[in-house]
């Protein structure tokens, strides 16, 4: 393993250790992996005082998450580090599936243009953590402490108190809320006597990161029963720095100790690449996969996120990507509760929404794994029949499942949604994550998601209207909806400006794609949450209806008879 150009992480004594009274922070996040870091950054950007604790002082090593999905990149953008990730990462949208050496089909995960981010980038987890840590260190109110392990925690009515073990002894510290992002083995989950339940697949996979100059394109390649690895599957992904990820299915009988031996792994890679391609092994490991989840992600003032709360097999890249969506779902809610704009009940919606997302991810991941590793003779029979038919008939290709790749989860059944009452020629109903689109802002070319940012926003179609009547209507909306920004979307050529009114921005739908993707006619409006999910939409801007939907999205019970 080559040493990483890591940021300076290290234990430093903190004043909390010597404080006469136990120090208190708004939120303590335990675990500085991608999920914990995103949670901490998002909270700090919202003005919350966060303490991030990690028992280690190094970046992730070896083969961990590599595929970061479009939604994750959009979240990184909002967290202020998307550009850096995409610059370093390898962007891809195309996948190929092979069966016995023959190309079965090619898929494109992002066939349409007009999106800022690609379907995926591949980027080693240690780079992702590195950039997130650098971003985190820019933020006032976010303190990271390394080599500090939570050894005990006590949840009380008014907060959580934890005991932290450091190289210089233990100390205690308190918080209003604690986020457990401490990974699949989650010591905090265990400390609370909680479990993540599910099942482990009876199969083993060799995962090798290989450094080489190779002519393969930047695509995801998946083989069923390839000539170089008969009766099993294989997967190839390109990463930055001439590193390639190769997965070999080994079967349940394989001996993990033997398979981990570098010479053995090298032989498998050579069989795939041919004898004349020089390479070096950067990392080898043998894995089994589980699909598990905790029954509930919220336990009073303790909230579980990422792998601590749920786990999936890697086919579909639904681990880190779902964890980062957990982080963004949780951060605005904690900030709203701590800031006094939402009732504590809002936190229950984190469990409802991300629990449903975990179920969806587990369902997809389990189906993929069952296709790749059929559990019974008849399952194998249908799998092989599907592959055989897929080489000749397009219908069977839609049944081939080498991983259904991560997309943003639609929170369709969320209690925070206000369902449509009018017809829309757009799939972006309540619960959907907003689709991106290019537009022109006052500062120049921009993107819809960039302009939506991270606050409650009312997106309003205004066509070519520049009238005083519109101005008056917007002023009224602003007055009726004190917590909501207004983003006016005008037709191409109608001009964009930072309106003179506070919390109002006007942008220009320069390519007409906002209108198209949102069916955004004149006065149509969408109420968008801080995590860029739609919570309601209407054909006209009626303040009372918008206000009711806004309160509902903040977790307040429906007001009686006022709408």
């Amino acid at each position, binding site marked *: 393993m080559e040493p990483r150009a890591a940021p300076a992480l290290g234990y430093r004594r903190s004043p909390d250790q010597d404080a006469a009274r136990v120090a208190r922070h708004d939120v303590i996040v335990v675990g500085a992996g991608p999920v914990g870091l995103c949670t901490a950054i998002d909270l700090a950007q919202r003005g919350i005082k966060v303490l991030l604790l990690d028992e280690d002082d190094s970046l992730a090593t070896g083969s961990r998450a590599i595929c970061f999905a479009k939604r994750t990149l959009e979240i990184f953008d909002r967290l202020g580090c998307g550009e850096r990730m995409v610059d370093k990462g390898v962007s891809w949208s195309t996948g190929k599936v092979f069966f016995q050496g023959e190309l079965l089909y090619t898929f494109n995960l992002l066939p349409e243009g007009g999106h800022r981010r690609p379907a995926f980038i591949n980027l080693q987890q240690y780079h992702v953590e590195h950039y997130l840590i650098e971003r985190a260190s820019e933020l006032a109110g976010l303190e990271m402490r390394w080599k500090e392990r939570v050894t005990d925690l006590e949840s009380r009515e008014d907060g959580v108190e934890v005991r932290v073990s450091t190289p210089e002894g233990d100390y205690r510290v308190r918080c209003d809320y604690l986020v457990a992002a401490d990974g699949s083995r989650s010591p905090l989950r265990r400390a609370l006597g909680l479990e993540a339940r599910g099942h482990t697949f009876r199969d083993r996979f060799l995962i090798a990161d290989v450094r080489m100059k190779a002519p393969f394109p930047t695509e995801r390649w998946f083989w069923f029963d390839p000539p170089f690895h008969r009766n099993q599957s294989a997967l190839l992904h390109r990463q930055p720095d001439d590193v390639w990820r190769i997965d070999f299915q080994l079967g349940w009988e394989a001996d993990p100790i033997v398979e981990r031996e570098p010479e053995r792994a090298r032989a498998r890679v050579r069989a795939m690449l041919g004898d004349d391609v020089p390479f070096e092994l950067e990392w080898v490991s043998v894995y089994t996969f589980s699909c598990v989840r905790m029954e509930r992600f919220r336990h009073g003032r303790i909230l579980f996120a990422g792998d601590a709360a749920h786990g999936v097999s890697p086919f579909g890249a639904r681990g880190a990507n779902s964890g980062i969506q957990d982080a963004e779902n949780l951060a605005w809610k904690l900030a709203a509760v701590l800031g006094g704009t939402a009732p504590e009940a809002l936190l229950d919606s984190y469990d409802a929404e991300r629990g449903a997302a975990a179920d969806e991810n587990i369902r997809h991941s389990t189906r993929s794994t069952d296709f790749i590793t059929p559990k019974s003779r008849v399952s194998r029979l249908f799998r092989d*029949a599907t592959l*055989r038919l897929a080489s000749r008939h397009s219908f069977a290709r839609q049944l081939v499942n080498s991983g259904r790749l991560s997309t943003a989860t639609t929170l369709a059944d969320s209690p925070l949604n206000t369902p449509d009452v009018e017809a829309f020629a757009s799939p972006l109903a309540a619960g959907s994550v907003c689709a991106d689109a290019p537009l022109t802002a006052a500062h120049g070319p921009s993107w819809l998601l960039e302009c939506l940012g991270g606050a409650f926003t009312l997106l309003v179609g205004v066509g070519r209207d520049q009238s005083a009547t519109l101005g008056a209507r917007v002023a009224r909306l602003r007055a009726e909806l004190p917590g909501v920004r207004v983003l006016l979307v005008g037709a191409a050529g109608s001009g964009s400006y930072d309106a003179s009114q506070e919390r109002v921005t006007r942008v220009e739908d320069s390519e007409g794609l906002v209108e198209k993707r949102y069916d955004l006619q004149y006065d149509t409006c969408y109420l968008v949450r801080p995590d860029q999910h739609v919570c309601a939409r209407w054909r006209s801007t009626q303040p009372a209806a918008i206000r009711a939907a806004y309160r509902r999205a903040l977790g307040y019970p429906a007001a009686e008879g006022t709408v």
Partner: protein
Amino acid sequence: MNALILEPHLARADDFYQALIDAHRDLSDDESAALNARLILLLANHIGDFEVLSAALAEARVDARPEAGSDAQSTA
């Protein structure tokens, strides 16, 4: 809801049955099983309707095992 047709619907029923048996001629049990799997997938795509296919799966399951059959029916 589209119902599964359980009344006579086959054109040339006897010819179809003969063709089905003929399709398996000279095949080993494994080869026959694979042929049946391909046939089911081809027909399923042709039918296309998930409700009809679910009803057919439940109906086929009735005779698989008495206790399992009644379960499958109640959830169809």
